[in-house]
């Protein structure tokens, strides 16, 4: 997969939230404050890229030589937890107000389905014979996926802020309306599919 294809696939075509339906929790309970949404999105992007890279390292340097591929989920989860801890410590030292201001808990962001989903996708994707993407590819894949999540977070946050609930039936308030909005967003995002990527790639002369 070319870089162009990798980035577009992870960010839009196989968008983590709207196509694979992972990481819905932070998006659906999306904060109406754009700052919080952007903060969570950026944190998710960073976490996804670091976790993908860490997963590559664990997969190729630790699990494969020892023949312990079946332990990969446990290993990835523990790695993600460790990353969350480091991230929280680093953010606490460098930007103490940041965590509080964005109001998120690092582990909620780090150890969620979206991050593990991207990690597992990276582990299965790619063309290398050992399976999985290479280190730089994993990093870029995670970053692209995180940007996809950021995009969805920002759009959903703006949509939720605009909703006028006065005439919406009470049963639909809150979670149902967010899910339905996500559904309509997913309908629109069907515009991005592999055919689009293939045609754009051939136009630009890149392999898809």
């Amino acid at each position, binding site marked *: 997969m070319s870089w162009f294809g990798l980035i577009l696939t992870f960010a839009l075509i196989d968008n983590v939230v709207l196509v694979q339906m992972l990481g819905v929790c932070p998006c659906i309970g999306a904060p109406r404050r754009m700052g919080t949404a952007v903060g969570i999105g950026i944190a998710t992007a960073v976490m996804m890229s670091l976790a993908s890279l860490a997963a590559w390292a664990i997969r190729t340097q630790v699990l494969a030589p020892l023949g312990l591929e079946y332990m990969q989920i446990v290993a990835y989860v523990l790695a993600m937890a460790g990353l969350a801890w480091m991230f929280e410590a680093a953010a606490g030292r460098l930007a103490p107000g940041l965590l509080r201001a964005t109001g998120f808990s690092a582990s909620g962001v780090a150890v969620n389905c979206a991050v593990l989903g991207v990690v597992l996708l990276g582990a299965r994707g790619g063309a290398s014979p050992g399976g999985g993407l290479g280190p730089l590819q994993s990093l870029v894949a995670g970053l692209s996926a995180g940007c996809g999540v950021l995009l969805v977070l920002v*759009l959903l946050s703006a949509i939720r802020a605009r909703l006028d609930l006065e005439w919406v*039936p009470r049963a639909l308030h809150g979670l149902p309306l967010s899910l339905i909005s996500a559904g309509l967003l997913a309908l629109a995002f069907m515009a991005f599919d592999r055919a689009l990527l293939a045609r754009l790639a051939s136009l630009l002369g890149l392999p898809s």
Partner: protein
Amino acid sequence: MSGTGASVVPARPAPHVRGAVSAPELIWSAALCLLPASAWGILVFGTPAAFVLLASIGSALVCEALTALLRREFTLLDGSAFLTGLMVGCLLPPGAPIHVAAVASGFAIVVVKQTFGGLGRNWMNPALAGVVFARLSWSEAFAVPVSTRWSGPGLAPLDALAAALPGPGSGGRGALETLAAAGYPVSAADGRVVGWLNARLAPLGVALPPGAFDLLAGIRPGGIGEIAVLLLIAGGVFLAARRVIRWQLPAVHLATFALLAWVFGGLGAGRGFFAGDAVFHLLAGSLLLVSFFMATDPVTSPLTPAGTIAYGIGLGAATFLLRFYGSMPDGAPLAVILMNCTVPLIDRYAKPVRLAAPRGGAR
């Protein structure tokens, strides 16, 4: 929030922050401007088109009545359900099954509009979302070959558009020449008019391709309401003159699309830059219908002038991308609903005009 106007506005929830443009008179005038194009579609395609329109309008009215009943209201008279049903029908091909038309309309009304609180509260265009849902669900219904009254059966509407798109095999021909080579039907009138014009224009070295007259006159397989390009343009101009729609939005949308189509449209066919067939792509498909009547929906487009321009440019770019490179040959509906998703974001960062917020002691 909008609660400030609650005491000012009567029981029917008017989207007062978005202004009075959704008042029933304006909605009915938009419907009126769309009727000539739909009538032409029925004339060209015959009774199947009439059934599709009846199904979509009927389904829209029934769904709106039932869901409004849950709120103890009767909203059919504001015209929005009729307009949505009409728009859905206009976008569907005449060969569409009745249940497809009915479900597309029902989806538009129930899921996209009423779920969010009814008129003025939705953030995605109902008719377009319903049609996209139908296209994704029943793609075979959109590929049925259609015949017009004056030309024989040919390629199915969307196939026709796809055949006209520049591809490696089109060998530097224009869109209409490519279609003619693919066996696209032309009417006898087109043969006569184009022949006459070509004879006159021969000294100038200009030759119109076959099918040019059909395209302009509205005799080609396509959606029921999207083929009558002249009637649609007239309707759009009338709506803009009556201030029902803002003229800037379709102007920027079509201009951006035309520019991109002209500059980049020929790349796929190997003709290089500045060789795209912009005129054909403006007139073919549902672009004019969508741009004048649906993209301009004041509920789902930005509030501010700057936001409108940005939205129009985004629409043009998205339509170009999806029309030329997307998997749905007619990219206009999908492009608009994709850009609808960004409108709340655009509005957030462009300060909206407060139209009805009483300040201080002013009631």
